């Protein structure tokens, strides 16, 4: 170090150290960053306070940064915005739904009442949707519009309104309201301190709430509660708090009061009309009448249909119970009943039966073919007609028997006996003596006995042939066995009627050979046949064995004579001892 350096050290040593230190700070990037970081917040703050240049300078780069970040990392931003966007959307949807449901509820509720119909007419005349009209009518009140007006110059600072409210030129309205306000104040307030606070116009009420620099004028439909004024005052106070300077100096620059509508929106309140409980529960008279008419109609249709179907069933039952009519089809077309089938001319006419069943004959269309009925009643009527309906004589048919009671001439008796069995439905004739029990008194027992007698008549005198000796011809052996079974059955029937059979078995033989031997043979043949009968279960006591006398011609060998003949008839049973 030379003298000069020493001198410099002595003179500027301290400054040099300071300079070195500064140089070091300036040259070292880290130190510079720390210095800038220290003063940056204060610098931003004071710059922003002084002018808007900082905002302008930052707008582009910050905007670019935000855009870039949105692009690179949308998730983070969507997460960050979620809590804000959710409630905002919800609020908006809720508001829309509330209005919508209000309209629907009111419209549905009012749709069928007389008042509803009247409103519907009025709404159509006014060209307003019915839902909106009903809403207007059923609201206790609704703030339709809110004007925020400068007190200084009457200029409109902000205006909000309900969607459906009819809006005129809001600036003109605002100015005119101010003019009216001034007029009223100058004309009617001696000290000019009075102010117009409310005005009524038909269904609307105007409420003016006065603030230091602005006037809040609300157009209210219906009858607002007193508490609403307090709420509106609170909103106006808040507007003054937020926009006080801008409102005070407002000269028509809308940008100076941007977003003020957000505050004013809170004025658009409404409250539905509270119904009395009794009114709420009451069903409208026309609705009730309509429902009653409907129920009545349903009942009438149901009952008349039921009665009609009952009458039809009655008619069908009557027809089915009436002899001489066969019903194949019954159906209903509109109010007419169509019947198809067959009808005996002797049966009562369908129209008569319909009247009896309570159905007008003109409503019944009977398409009946003619036929001859074999039902006993009809047969009896027919027979009576054929024999000229003799007075005092009753004709009846049972199980094919024509039973005739009453005073009959011999001639008529003979005619009935001869002609009646030829008629369809009559198998046999039974004539009762005059004064006998009437037809209805004939017992089942008598009929069974008659039938037994008829059956026995059919079996009486059957012959069965032998080939030789006591050997029956094969086919006759079978016939005899069947005959024995038939007799056995009739024997049981006879017993049940309190009678018994009497069976006579008569054997025969031809004339060849010894007549005594032939008589024995004849008896033996009868015995063989009797044995067959006994084997079938017929009591031997009822069987009588006989031998037929030998033929006159001893040489006769007619095989017809080699037989047995079985005769049968009915005898009253012996009274038991």
């Amino acid at each position: 170090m030379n003298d000069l350096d020493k001198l410099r050290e002595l003179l500027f040593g301290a400054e040099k150290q300071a300079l070195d230190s500064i140089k070091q700070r300036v040259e070292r990037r880290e130190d510079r960053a720390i210095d800038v970081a220290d003063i940056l917040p204060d610098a931003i703050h004071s710059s922003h306070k002084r002018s808007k240049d900082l905002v302008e300078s930052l707008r582009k780069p910050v905007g670019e940064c935000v855009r870039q970040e949105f692009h690179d990392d949308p998730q983070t931003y969507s997460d960050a915005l979620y809590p804000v966007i959710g409630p905002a959307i919800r609020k908006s949807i809720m508001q829309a739904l509330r209005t919508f449901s209000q309209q629907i509820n009111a419209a549905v509720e009012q749709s069928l009442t007389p008042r509803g119909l009247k409103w519907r007419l009025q709404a159509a005349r006014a060209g307003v949707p019915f839902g909106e009209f009903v809403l207007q009518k059923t609201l206790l009140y609704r703030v339709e519009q809110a004007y925020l007006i400068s007190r200084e110059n009457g200029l409109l600072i902000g205006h909000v309104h309900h969607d459906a409210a009819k809006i005129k030129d809001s600036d003109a309205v605002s100015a005119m309201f101010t003019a009216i306000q001034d007029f009223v104040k100058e004309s009617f307030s001696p000290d000019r301190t009075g102010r117009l606070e409310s005005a009524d116009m038909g269904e609307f009420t105007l409420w003016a709430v006065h603030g230091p620099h602005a006037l809040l004028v609300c157009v209210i439909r219906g009858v607002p509660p007193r508490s609403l004024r307090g709420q509106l005052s609170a909103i106006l106070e808040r507007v003054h708090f937020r926009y006080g300077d801008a409102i005070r100096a407002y000269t028509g620059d809308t940008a100076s009061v941007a977003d003020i509508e957000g505050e004013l929106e809170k004025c658009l309140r409404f409250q539905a009309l509270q119904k009395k409980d009794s009114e709420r529960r009451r069903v409208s008279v026309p609705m009730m009448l309509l429902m009653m008419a409907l129920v009545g109609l349903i009942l009438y249709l149901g009952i008349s249909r039921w009665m009609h179907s009952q009458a039809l069933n009655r008619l069908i039952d009557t027809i089915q119970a009436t002899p001489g009519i066969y019903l194949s089809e019954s159906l209903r077309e509109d109010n007419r009943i169509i019947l198809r089938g067959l009808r005996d001319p002797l049966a009562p006419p369908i129209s008569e039966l319909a009247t009896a069943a309570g159905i007008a004959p003109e409503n019944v269309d009977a398409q009946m073919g003619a036929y001859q009925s074999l039902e006993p009643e009809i047969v009896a009527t027919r027979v009576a007609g054929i024999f000229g309906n003799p007075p005092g004589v009753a004709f009846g048919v049972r199980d094919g028997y024509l039973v005739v009671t009453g005073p009959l001439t011999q001639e008529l008796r003979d005619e009935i006996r001869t002609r009646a069995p030829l008629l369809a439905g009559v198998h046999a004739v039974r004539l009762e003596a005059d004064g006998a029990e009437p037809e209805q008194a004939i017992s089942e027992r008598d009929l069974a006995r008659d039938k037994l007698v008829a059956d026995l008549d059919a079996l009486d005198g059957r012959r069965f042939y032998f080939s030789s000796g006591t050997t029956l011809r094969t086919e006759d052996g079978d016939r005899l066995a069947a005959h024995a079974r038939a007799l056995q059955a009739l024997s049981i029937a006879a017993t049940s009627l309190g009678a018994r059979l009497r069976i006579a078995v008569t054997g025969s033989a031809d004339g060849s050979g010894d007549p005594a031997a032939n008589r024995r043979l004849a008896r033996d043949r009868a015995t063989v046949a009797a044995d067959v009968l006994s084997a079938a279960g017929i009591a031997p006591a009822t069987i009588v064995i006989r031998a037929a006398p030998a033929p006159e011609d001893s040489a006769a060998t007619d095989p017809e004579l080699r037989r047995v003949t079985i005769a049968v008839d009915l005898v009253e049973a012996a009274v038991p001892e």
Partner: protein
Amino acid sequence: MTLITSKVCLVGDFAVGKTSVVERYVNNQFSERYLTTVGVKIDTKEIELPQHGITEKLVLWDVAGADRFGPIEFAYLRGAAGYVFVADGTRSLTLDSALALRDQIMNASNARPSVLLLNKCDLVSAWEIDDARVEALHDHFDSVFRTSAKTGDDVETALTRLAEVIVECELRSGR
């Protein structure tokens, strides 16, 4: 475009044609029928001022005619951004009234942009105001126009001019 709203008051003596001027300006219509204005009548009209990037909505207060204002009229004038003084060019007395009203207003409040409309210029033969007097009026108003609400002459020009002056004034005052 920025939207600003300005209150403009039309003042002048009876039957000078204030309402007709507004009717011509706003609705481009004219009626020979005279209907006196009671109190105040309000109309609005928007005009574009592209040179300033502004849409200006004029709220026109058509104040009932008077040769002197009372308290009610003054209440109507409160906060006006500009004035349209209207006189009937065929009745020079109405010009005196307009000047008197101007003085009255200037004494009561701050100076505001104003234009003078010498109306009914279509009635040339009855015209009473000579050019020298018109020239002298320029000292008292921002602009002076010979207008006719009947033919529409210079009505729009006059109102547009006033709108421009108002905006320029507002811009100067540091809006």
